[in-house]
């Protein structure tokens, strides 16, 4: 009953000095607002990363060579593999051979859906007449598309007979088809293009056109975009005169496997005997799960650090609230004296002013949440992600701003409660 009256009184007092209340709330608004903005951006970022990782395949186990001296740093970021970690030292004996893969496939028949191999032979240029486009050439096996969700727009994918027959066929992106044939995707099919790569010109026939997906991580948005072109693995091996083996491949597990990371350990164990004598390299696996986790932990570390800085602004805001409450109490000394003369207990006076300070902070907090969410949504939009509402941080913010109200309101409220009524009534 008394609390409802107190809330009414508090609103009356705050509304009587709107400008002052708003300025006081500003510290809280900025503090809570920046925390919410950061949380909105980071949760948008997290969900977008999780989406794009899911797209890449949750059942994929990326397996590759790992340089032994680099054990520490590889473990730290979990994303570097033989090829990326500098393959200049990789020798023929280090590579994974077709025999090893056949053995792997046999040993885990029930668990493996496909083994996707993709060997990059470097960048090149695709030409048709006077038109040209930049490409990155990937030699792939027929199981490659099990690991990568690629949408086929026209024609067909590279199949086993292409690889067996060393056929000079190529799958290109719709972007390339557009710039080379500036027409429909179908018109590109069965056309001959010249590919210049590694200092040589070779002719390829287009068999398929796939949809180019703008990746979260790709920054290249110019018209002169480099897209991936797929050729049969056997042809790629011929182009670089290499038939040694692979530094990296992707195991696509069957859908009914529950613990992908457990299976990834089994794969590592399978390769152990082949690499026991190898001083330089071992086999290491990575799942989408572990990559996502390491990304998340990075984002959350950054947002905690930035939130801590925003927390300082909340502290300053809280001191502002305390200051204005002290002023308000001095101004209303006679009112406090009157209330005491009418029979208000010290506790009722204390409650009245704490309520006022809590409401001030709570309003600031709510305005801060709204401002922060708007700013965060704008920032997320500019960065190209959909805005996600960080529900947890909204609940925490509301609670936290109320706590600031109680903490910084207590001292002034207690001062009001302890006033001598006779002196308070005499106050001019």
């Amino acid at each position, binding site marked *: 009953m008394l609390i409802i009256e107190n809330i009414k009184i508090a609103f009356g007092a705050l509304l009587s000095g709107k400008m002052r209340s708003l300025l006081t709330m500003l510290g809280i608004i900025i503090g809570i607002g920046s925390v919410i903005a950061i949380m909105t951006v980071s949760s948008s970022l997290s969900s977008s990363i999780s989406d794009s990782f899911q797209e890449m395949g949750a059942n994929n186990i990326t397996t590759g060579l790992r340089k032994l001296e680099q054990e520490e740093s590889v473990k730290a970021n979990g994303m570097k593999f033989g090829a990326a970690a500098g393959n200049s030292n990789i020798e023929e004996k280090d590579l994974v051979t077709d025999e090893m893969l056949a053995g792997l496939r046999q040993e885990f028949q029930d668990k493996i859906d496909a083994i996707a191999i993709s060997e990059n032979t470097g960048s090149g240029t695709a030409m048709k007449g006077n038109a040209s486009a930049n490409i990155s050439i990937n030699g792939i096996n027929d199981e490659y598309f099990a690991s990568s969700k690629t949408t086929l727009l026209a024609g067909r994918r590279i199949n086993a007979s292409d690889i067996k027959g060393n056929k000079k066929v190529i799958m290109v992106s719709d972007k390339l088809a557009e710039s080379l044939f500036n027409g429909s995707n179908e018109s590109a099919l069965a056309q001959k293009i010249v590919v210049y790569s590694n200092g040589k010109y070779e002719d390829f026939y287009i068999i398929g056109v796939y949809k180019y997906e703008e990746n979260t991580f790709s920054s290249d948005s110019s018209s002169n975009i480099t897209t991936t072109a797929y050729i049969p693995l056997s042809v790629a091996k011929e182009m670089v005169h290499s038939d040694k083996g692979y530094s990296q491949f992707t195991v696509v597990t069957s859908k009914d496997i529950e613990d992908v990371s457990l299976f990834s350990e089994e794969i590592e164990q399978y390769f152990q005997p082949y690499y026991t004598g190898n001083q330089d390299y071992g086999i290491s696996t990575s799942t989408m799960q572990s990559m996502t986790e390491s990304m998340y932990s990075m984002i959350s570390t950054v947002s905690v650090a930035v939130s801590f800085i925003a927390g300082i602004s909340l502290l300053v805001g809280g001191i502002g609230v305390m200051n204005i409450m002290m002023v308000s109490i001095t101004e209303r000394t006679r009112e406090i004296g*009157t209330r005491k003369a*009418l029979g208000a207990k010290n506790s009722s006076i204390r409650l009245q002013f704490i309520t006022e300070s809590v409401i001030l902070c709570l309003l600031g907090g709510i305005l801060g949440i709204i401002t922060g969410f708007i700013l965060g949504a704008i920032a997320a939009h500019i960065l190209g992600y959909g805005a996600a509402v960080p529900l947890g941080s909204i609940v925490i913010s509301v609670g936290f701003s109320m706590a600031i109200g109680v903490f910084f309101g207590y001292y002034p409220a207690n001062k009001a409660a302890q006033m001598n009524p006779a002196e308070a009534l005499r106050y001019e």
Partner: protein
Amino acid sequence: MQKGKRIIIELKDIVKKYYLGKPNELEILHGIDLQVEKGEFVSIVGESGSGKSTLMNIIGALDKPDSGIYNLDGINICNTKEKKLSGIRNQKIGFVFQTYNLVARTSAIANVELPMLYNGIPKAERHRRAEELLELVGMKDRMLHKPEELSGGQKQRVAIARAMANDPGLLLADEPTGALDSASGRNIMDIFHHFNKERGKTVLLITHSKELAYETGRIVTLFDGRITDIRRNMAAC
């Protein structure tokens, strides 16, 4: 003083000092002895600085004396803790101030309800009694107005209604007509007489107006912190 009447206020050798920092202590009241019976209308007169307001603060349990004994309705106020004092101020004493002291931005009726709110009276009952009291002082038609929208006399009438909210036995009025024109002042005095005669309330009126004092049953004159004269006024009785 007639035997058999109940004593509501009993002051014995009350001394009150103010400390303005050592060694400047200022003694305002130098041993006040006074007894007030239930149902009396007593005026305390004196010039400004004579200690009238200090005495009223002590009688109203807003301040404690440095020495002496004060019993209000049989309760030793000097030994009572603040928590209990707030209850005594709430239920046994009604205050009327020269400057009205209505709570700003709050309607007349909400002001009258305030002491009942602190007394834990349910809303419906609070509202009913506040309306009744405002009607009695002739302010029912303006009960939703805020203090800023009322004249001085109207504010003081609301203040009296507020003082009577918990039906206290003692009404303490400190220069209640000091800031009012004579017609409004007359009206306020009539209300005090009404509560004194019709409802048997003890009224303690602090004033520097001799004219008003002559309307009361007993006139206590205060000079330099001492009672110099207590005169029973037969005409008013």
